């Protein structure tokens, strides 16, 4: 019954999305009157999608084995925590989450983006409805999450053990909010081009949504990276895998958009460019989904593979992106030229930032899809980390160097002597560079430059706060400083992890010791342990560095449903790095395989990533608070006028 209810809700929501599009297409008098109706439909459609998703959650919660999706992905024994998360740990459920977010963002846009021309708003909400309609069709026609199983299964097949992790609960929803949030920028850009109004008001309306999805994308990518880092047991945090690139591509576009939208909002420049980025951003989100869901490329994070579904998403994407680009081509000549500016101004630096980000985007996109294109022509080719590191590394460092001066330049201004802050940062970078050479550390040029430029950026990023009283600085400035500081730390962390990681592989018996970097690790025993749906051999390790010791307990886990073994790494976190341990096969007679890594300052990668996301959050909250504060007097005076007119 619940499954049918969810299914019906999906159909109804799809019908409403269609209605939303039709109303948005109305012209003249009827069109002008349609906007309130469109807003109401957007809200109702989101509620129905929410109902469908709640139905799916319920089915997973009660483990209704007569539903095919539940039977193949859940199991009655599973922990309650993962029972619900299993709802989106599969293709159909995750696509339902996607469409729920798409309609949810539509409803939020209808409710909160009010400062725009009605014509722009109609177009934007119509586009959002059209996007939702396509994905409803995808769900209902090729990936129905509510399909029944006849006869019902006796027992669920279980969730892949690697997914039975807190990472599953947070990572996909976070990433999806980021992906789908970009649809708002896409729809607003379409609305603006249809309505012929590309201006600062549009940029100001678009910015909070871009900030929101960028923040979530950052957090999602960081979370996914950390999840892969501890779950796969390889000690790596980024593999330039297609599935990872799928999340990096929209992030790069969103980062560029975030910066160009500021230029449009502050200076009415970069109109056409900003519109193009808004379209590219969500196009990259859809491309990422296509990549992940089609399984066309080899991935260490491979999910279920189904080419037919991939084709469906590809067709949807071609329709939306092709249509959007056609509109862009037709309308862009009518978009007024933006305000002029000097090369050595804030705008100039942001243009350079956008160019660099776009080039990195193009290179990653090319490297990710080149194998697919080549395959269509009969050549079997694959592109791996050597390519990506080579082409993206130097450009990313250029971007870091640009961050030394960019935020210190002022808008519009032609030239100002370099501030003391930038000079100080430059000295810091130079000192670091000299130090790495003087100390005789052997590392690649890229790593050396990464350490130097990252350290310089840590200084440079703080300068905008030092030139005024820090507590007086507006929230967006704080957000920018935090994010740029995060980029500096991240750069240092990446370079340090790459240059200084120490690895140790040993066969150990109880009582044996192994050293890695500054750490001495004692293997005390191999202990059998049991969890709710797994059993494991746990290595009891005692790690010490000078004074004090800490316990580490990596495991070899054997899950019973489905029967799979995984290796659970153990991490010891100190401010200056992480000690990473995994245990392999072994026996009491032959000893146990033990793999240890000491990763100096890998912590800076995690802290840096968190700071970047935090910067986005601070800026977003600051802007929302300010918008509310500005809206309140306006509303109060409107109410006052209303009362007066009585």
């Amino acid at each position: 019954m619940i499954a049918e209810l969810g299914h019906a809700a999906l159909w109804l929501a799809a019908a409403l999305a269609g209605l939303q599009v039709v109303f948005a297409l109305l012209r003249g008098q009827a069109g002008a009157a349609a906007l309130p109706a469109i807003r109401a439909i957007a809200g109702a459609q989101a509620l129905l999608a929410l109902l469908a998703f709640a139905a799916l959650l319920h089915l997973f919660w009660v483990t209704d084995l007569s539903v095919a999706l539940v039977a193949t992905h859940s199991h009655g024994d599973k922990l309650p925590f993962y029972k619900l998360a299993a709802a989106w740990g599969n293709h159909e459920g995750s696509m339902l989450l996607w469409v729920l977010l798409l309609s949810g963002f539509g409803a939020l846009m209808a409710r909160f983006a009010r400062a725009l021309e009605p014509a722009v708003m109609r177009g934007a909400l119509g586009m959002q409805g059209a996007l939702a309609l396509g994905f409803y069709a995808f769900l209902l026609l090729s990936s129905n999450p509510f399909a029944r199983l006849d006869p019902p299964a006796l027992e669920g097949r279980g969730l892949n053990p690697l997914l039975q992790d807190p990472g599953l609960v947070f990572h996909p929803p976070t990433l999806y909010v980021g992906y789908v949030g970009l649809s708002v920028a896409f729809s607003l850009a379409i609305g603006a081009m249809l309505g012929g109004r590309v201006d600062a008001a549009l940029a100001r309306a678009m910015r909070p949504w871009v900030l929101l999805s960028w923040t979530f994308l950052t957090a999602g990518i960081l979370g996914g990276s950390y999840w892969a880092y501890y779950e796969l047991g390889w000690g790596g945090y980024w593999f330039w895998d297609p599935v990872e690139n799928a999340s990096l591509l929209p992030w790069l576009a969103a980062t560029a958009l975030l910066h160009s939208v500021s230029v449009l909002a502050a200076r009415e420049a970069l109109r056409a460019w900003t519109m193009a980025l808004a379209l590219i951003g969500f196009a990259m989100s859809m491309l990422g989904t296509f990549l992940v869901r089609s399984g066309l490329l080899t991935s260490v994070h491979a999910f279920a593979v189904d080419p037919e579904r991939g084709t469906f998403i590809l067709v949807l994407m071609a329709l939306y992106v092709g249509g959007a680009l056609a509109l862009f081509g037709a309308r862009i000549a009518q978009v007024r030229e933006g305000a002029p500016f000097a090369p050595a101004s804030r705008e100039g630096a942001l243009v350079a930032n956008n160019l660099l980000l776009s080039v990195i985007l193009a290179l990653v996109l090319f490297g990710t899809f080149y194998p697919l294109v080549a395959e269509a022509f009969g050549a079997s080719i694959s592109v791996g980390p050597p390519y990506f590191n080579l082409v993206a590394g130097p450009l990313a460092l250029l971007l870091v160097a640009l961050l030394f001066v960019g935020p210190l330049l002022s808008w519009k201004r032609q030239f100002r002597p370099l501030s003391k802050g930038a000079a100080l940062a430059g000295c810091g970078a130079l000192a670091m560079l000299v130090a790495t050479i003087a100390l005789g550390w052997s590392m690649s040029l890229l790593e050396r430059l990464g350490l130097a430029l990252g350290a310089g950026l840590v200084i440079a990023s703080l300068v905008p706060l030092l030139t005024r009283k820090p507590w007086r600085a507006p929230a967006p400035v704080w957000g920018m400083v935090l994010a740029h500081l995060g980029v500096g730390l991240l750069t240092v962390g990446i370079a340090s992890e790459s240059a200084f990681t120490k690895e140790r592989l040993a066969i150990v018996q109880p009582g044996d010791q192994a050293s890695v970097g500054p750490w001495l690790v004692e293997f005390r025993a191999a202990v059998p342990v049991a969890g709710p749906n797994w059993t494991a051999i746990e290595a009891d390790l005692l790690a010490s560095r000078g004074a004090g010791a800490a316990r580490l307990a990596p495991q070899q886990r054997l899950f019973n449903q489905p029967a799979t073994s995984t290796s659970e790494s153990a991490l010891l976190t100190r401010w200056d790095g992480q000690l990473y341990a995994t245990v392999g096969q072994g026996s009491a007679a032959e000893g146990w395989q033990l793999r240890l890594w000491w990763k100096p300052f890998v912590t800076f990668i995690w802290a840096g990533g968190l700071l970047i996301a935090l910067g986005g959050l601070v800026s977003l909250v600051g802007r929302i608070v300010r918008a509310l504060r500005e809206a309140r007097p306006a509303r109060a005076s409107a109410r006052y006028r209303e009362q007066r007119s009585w």
Partner: protein
Amino acid sequence: MTAAPKTQRLLLVILAIAALAGAALLALWGLQGRAAYFVTPSEIAAGRVEPGVPLRLGGMVSAGSIAPVGDGNSFRFRLEDETATTTVRYRGILPDLFVEGSGAVAEGRLLANGEFAADRILAKHDENYMPPELAERAERATAETVAAP
């Protein structure tokens, strides 16, 4: 030198095109010698793989070929496809789903003596996991064998 509006847009367009052209050149240069990142034992046997270049080798683990070497932390095994076999040396912990007769991908480089030195073995996530490249080649090879007589 604040440019006139019309020239500024033109300038930006030219800059963007130059950046993209630069990206294309960089991509082509970056792919030089790095395009064949995924290879099979038969490609190695045919002498089409250059030693010392980082790449991935995919194949099925030959039955009865996994053997520990030395201290018990190093292993030697063979990866095979339909026509050829490559010996792989690996020092480390073998992944949980690494078993004889199923697919695996070794990441590392080819040595001058024709053996493959792996830094990492990928065989994870799913007991049915097979890299698409490998699945397709196996299919193609099967089709060819059937068509051959």
